[in-house]
């Protein structure tokens, strides 16, 4: 066991997989000599050279298309989005070609690629640098969407994403890169499609992902002191949703609170509610509560910014209201 920061856990995953498989390479803006805007690829170019750490010009759609073409012909590209928001410019290549080409080609080509990088609301970064693209992309067929939240799961999930033969969108969070955790010395992989039960409990299921996991944990500290016993599930896989883990929990708690950082309108939470409505409506003893970011561009001003995203107190209030004096 050794204590590792989030960004170094990701870096170790990249390093190990590049060492293991010569077809794995990284491309993106400033991934090489500069070492990545959050230092995830720092100094890897010294070990692997400038073709395996390919510094690209600033042309997101075209370098993503290049990654697709190289994946179709047998390489395993990893794109680093300098900020995942910039990949709005690559929406065409991600949706049409990363996502749909295998199907459209009737199985002629595989697209083993990972698109990873920082997303989420940071601190005073303004609207454009505070975007959460996971909801925009969840409707694209053929892709998997993964969101990591701890150094441990970041490493194990990224390694699995690199080995997966499908296109994987892999979301990190700008505010989590400096978290530290003791990681096993031996190699480990984590499944891409399994949610993580962060805390078992029986009163209410709280579904969350990415940075909101920490807001939920904070709220749950208070809630447990007040005698509540919530179950916390980190979704990990945003597409496909791990409905099995979600339903198992619902069968126990019959109450659900969703805490997400993406926008309320058309968000991941909206999709979860619809899926539960389709499959497990009878399990619910109360309407699902959804706590999400407000439908407004993220403001620069810190006070206003905090108002747009869910805070731990909001979670406490929502759970208390939902459970009332049931306990």
């Amino acid at each position, binding site marked *: 066991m050794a204590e590792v920061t989030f960004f170094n856990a990701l870096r170790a995953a990249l390093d190990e997989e590049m060492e293991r498989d*010569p*077809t794995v*390479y990284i491309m993106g803006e400033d991934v090489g000599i500069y070492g990545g805007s959050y230092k995830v690829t720092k100094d890897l170019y010294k070990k692997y*050279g400038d*073709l*395996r750490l390919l510094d*690209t*010009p600033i*042309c997101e*759609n*075209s*370098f*993503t*298309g*290049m*990654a*697709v*073409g*190289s*994946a*179709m*012909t*047998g*390489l395993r*590209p990893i794109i680093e989005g300098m900020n995942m928001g910039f990949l709005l410019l690559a929406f*065409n*290549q991600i949706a*049409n*070609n990363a996502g749909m*080409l*295998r*199907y*459209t*080609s*009737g*199985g*002629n*080509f*595989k*697209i*083993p690629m990972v698109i990873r990088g920082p997303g989420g609301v940071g601190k005073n970064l303004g609207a454009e640098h505070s975007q959460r693209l996971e909801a925009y992309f969840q409707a694209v*067929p*053929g892709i998997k969407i993964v969101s990591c939240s701890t150094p441990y799961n970041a490493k194990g999930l990224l390694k699995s994403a690199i080995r*997966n*033969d*499908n296109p994987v969108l892999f979301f990190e969070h700008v505010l989590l890169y400096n978290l530290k955790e003791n990681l096993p010395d031996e190699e480990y992989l984590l499944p891409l499609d399994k949610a993580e039960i962060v805390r078992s409990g029986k009163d209410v299921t709280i579904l969350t992902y990415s940075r909101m996991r920490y807001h939920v944990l904070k709220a749950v500290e208070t809630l447990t002191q007040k005698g509540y016993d919530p179950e916390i599930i980190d979704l990990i896989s945003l597409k496909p949703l791990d409905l099995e883990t979600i339903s198992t929990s619902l069968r126990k708690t019959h109450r659900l609170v969703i805490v997400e950082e993406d926008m309320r309108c058309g968000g991941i939470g909206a999709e979860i509610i619809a899926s539960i409505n389709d499959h497990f409506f009878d399990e619910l003893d109360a309407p699902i509560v959804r706590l999400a970011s407000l439908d407004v561009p993220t403001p620069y001003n810190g006070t206003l910014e905090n108002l747009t995203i869910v805070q731990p107190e909001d979670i406490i209030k929502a759970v208390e209201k939902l459970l009332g004096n049931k306990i």
Partner: protein
Amino acid sequence: MLQELTNLSITAQEGLMLYEDMVLGRTFEDKCAEMYYRGKMFGFVHLYNGQEAVATGVIRAMRRDHDYVCSTYRDHVHALSAGVPANEVMAELFGKATGCSKGRGGSMHIFSGKHNFLGGFAFVAEGIPVAAGAAFQSKYRREVMNDPNADHVTACFFGDGATNNGQFFETLNMASLWSLPIIFVVENNKWAIGMQHVRATSDISIYKKAAVFGMPGFEVDGMDVLAVRQVAEEAVRRARAGEGPTLMECMTYRFRGHSLADPDELRPKAEKDEWFGRDPIKILAAKLLELDMATEQELKSIDKKIQTLVEDSVKFAETSPEPSPDELYRFQFAEDE
């Protein structure tokens, strides 16, 4: 400048091969029009009539099943020249399970992994970076993985309209920057549906745009397969030798509307007539006869052979099964073979 044909260095055998390839393209497309109007194929079908010298001139100067070819939505004939069997392309257009894309793709999404045919891209210009990715892969295998056999060349076809899209410029930049083994082949047929090339671009000479990326660019008579072939051969040589990309602007014309749904009312009759007078198949046939490389009889028998091959492809498509509804989801993920 227009590449003038200086020394003609093809054998009779090559001449006949080129002729056959172009006749295949033409005959296949004529059959598509017939089948479309008979309700056998659907959706948007973009035919290639008139442009055959470009596909044949470039692709038949490449190594089949080794080099890569990347196309647009006007893709049937590029696929045929790359060696994708007519049966599989026709069956795809009929939406059948035996189609090269298993009935999932259709006219605008022709693919064949076996023939290194990368598609089939329905959005204008989106195939350009994908082709560059295949070319990057060849370079990567050669330089990172020390694979001496990775000397593939990628040919990337697109229209005049696509050259106004950012992906064209962005990809030319990267291809030149990294000296990728790729040939950018612009099929300048003067029109992008109803948008005339001269109304859409500030400098109409597309080949000149290569120079700003430090890349050689050539204007080629796209109705003369031998002219196209000559420039393509040099571009292939350069790419294979690791000397980098080339841009070819092939001046051509489509003999039909944009797609079979297009009434084709905008293009002036005089313009059409002028180009109809420059039918690339007739030009090659005349040249082969003039040079005593073929007899009328030989050319006729090729026409006949191709006619039969195309008829057979229709029979194959007609008698092929529909994809099973049970397999609606098949091929979405890599785990489905």
